[in-house]
């Protein structure tokens, strides 16, 4: 009777996971580029063909920097990316700096139901490599529709929603809450509170690259008194 094989071998099936372990998803994951985060994610990366929800209260805390390595890798491999209903107007030179190829990046500044429709089309087409969508108003049934559209397809699908949505149930198999660091040197606080596997109790701090550059003071002094005085003072305070 082959079916009654060792129970331990049964446990190696990919669709069975034990409560104390993280499911092994195999190859359809894209590494996040942050080792500390990959250690927490099932399959050691962002899952393809499933929604990943990122919950945050305000844009600009480094949320996209967290996705940046994965998106840049997809873009370098020639995949199309789509940003649906971005929270604010997207600035192309920054994306260039990130190594995304602009000719294969679709930006859709749409609102409301149109945004959901666009995400669904993009996910179910299977033609895109990654989608980032800002859907603050999405309801659980709509999220379910998107999850169904994503299933069995190859794109990475990220949905950005406000922190308050953490209380709602969601069909997304991966949910991550992001909080800004308290001070400029602190990393981004990341809490994986839902995943295929036991939830992570504690949030971790991820040291993401920050837009810091230094200018040596060989640089010509700024003209005019109001410029130099205040800037010099603030810089020395950091």
């Amino acid at each position, binding site marked *: 009777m082959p079916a009654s094989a060792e129970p331990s071998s049964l446990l190696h099936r990919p669709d069975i996971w034990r409560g104390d372990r993280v499911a092994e998803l195999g190859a359809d994951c894209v590494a996040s580029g942050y080792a500390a985060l990959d250690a927490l994610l099932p399959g050691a990366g962002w899952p393809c063909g499933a929604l990943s929800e990122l919950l945050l209260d305000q844009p600009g805390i480094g949320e996209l920097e967290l996705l940046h390595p994965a998106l840049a890798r997809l873009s370098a491999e020639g995949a199309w990316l789509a940003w649906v209903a971005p929270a604010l107007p997207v600035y192309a030179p920054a994306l260039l700096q990130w190594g995304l190829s602009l000719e294969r990046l679709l930006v859709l500044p*749409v609102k409301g139901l149109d945004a959901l429709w666009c995400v669904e089309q993009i996910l179910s087409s299977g033609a895109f490599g990654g989608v980032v969508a800002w859907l603050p108003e999405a309801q659980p049934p709509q999220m379910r529709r998107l999850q169904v559209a994503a299933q069995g397809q190859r794109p990475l699908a990220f949905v950005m929603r406000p922190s308050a949505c953490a209380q709602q149930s969601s069909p997304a198999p991966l949910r991550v809450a992001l909080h800004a660091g308290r001070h400029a040197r602190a990393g981004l606080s990341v809490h994986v509170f839902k995943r295929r596997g036991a939830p992570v109790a504690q949030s971790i701090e991820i040291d993401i690259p920050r837009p810091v550059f230094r200018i040596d003071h060989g640089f010509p002094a700024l003209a005019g008194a109001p410029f130099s005085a205040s800037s010099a003072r603030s810089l020395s305070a950091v």
Partner: protein
Amino acid sequence: MKTGSAWALAPTLHVYTRTIPAEVQALQNLACWAGRLTPHVYMEAPNALLLEIGGCLRLFEGLDRLLDIACSESAGLGFSPKIGLAPTPRAALWRARAGLHEAWQDATATDLFGALAEVPVAALALEANSLAAVQAWGISRLGELLSLPREGLAARLGTGFVLQLAQALGELSDPRESFIFPERFSQRIEWPAPVEHTTAILFSSRRIIAALSGWLSRRASGLRECVLILEHPHQDPTQLRLRFAEPVYQASRIERLLRERLERHRLKDAVEALRLEATRIEPLQGEALALFGQAPPKNSVAEVLDRLRVRVGEEAVQILGARADHRPENAHLLASTPHVTASPAFPRPVWLTPKPRRLRERQGRPDHGGPLVLISGPERIESGWWDEGEAGATGDLRRDYFVAFAPNGQWLWIYRDQEGWWLHGLFA
């Protein structure tokens, strides 16, 4: 039978007036569609099409599949074809008219004699008195007629019929005038009564789209743009323009885009006729068939782009570009064509507010929900006198940019100019 007596027998009978031009139009439509199956199409008035399919069997992976496609697609267009198959056109025509659409295999055999034996004489295009004469001889099948001596038949039924027999049997050549596909595609459908729902319009346009698809295949071209014109009884016609991101020839894609366009369109009036015109076509690049049954990608990006453009509008489907300009506002543009790949040396924010926001200043420091910490900077960006005063231009500027950290954890891109502090973007 008069219509009066017909109604007496069947009170629910619908009577339509026969319009010959509409029939011819419908046949031409179908001939265009048939261009999808074979380049050799012949019209046989009033109600038959002859398709030479011998050379296309390989493309369609065999006869069965080709016939399946022909049957199901023509049924989808609202026709119920009777199909006859034979090695000569006239034999095929006779078999089709006789309704001998089963047993394809027999008909493809070289035994033409056997293929024709079953055809009833009533199905041959004989004149009424000749047909009466043949039936008076007690002959009902073509097989019996073929066993009679030809000379006698020629004397009794005329040489024309004997000639047709010889053509059917492949003894004589059967030259026909090939259907000429129109140079420009523009077709019109008129309804008996004005329609008010887009579903009805969509249903009827399927016929035209099928014809368009056949016409495109015949020309080995793809459609880039077409116009659907809806004619109203009391108002000016409505024009709906459909654009495609890549040349398409598949009826399903054209239809899908049209459906999305129509679903979002509100009819201003009832529609009494519609016309579809192909306004821009492009020759199609050759397409390699898959080897070993590798499935091609299910949907192309271009197809998704088309659908998105139709639904949310051209302007909301953006591909960004960057320009070599030191002024932040000018370095960003919407079209993807003029494009640089060199990026600025200093960090640029992912979010850029279109109009910088004024920041308050407290004790000489900028404030945004609390005092900001300046992380790095300044980066001096100045000058731009060359487009000063032009409409919509950024003009001359003189700014010192800083990266700042806000108390709520946001990373800001702010600048200071003569007037004070401004918030220009957010790093994400």
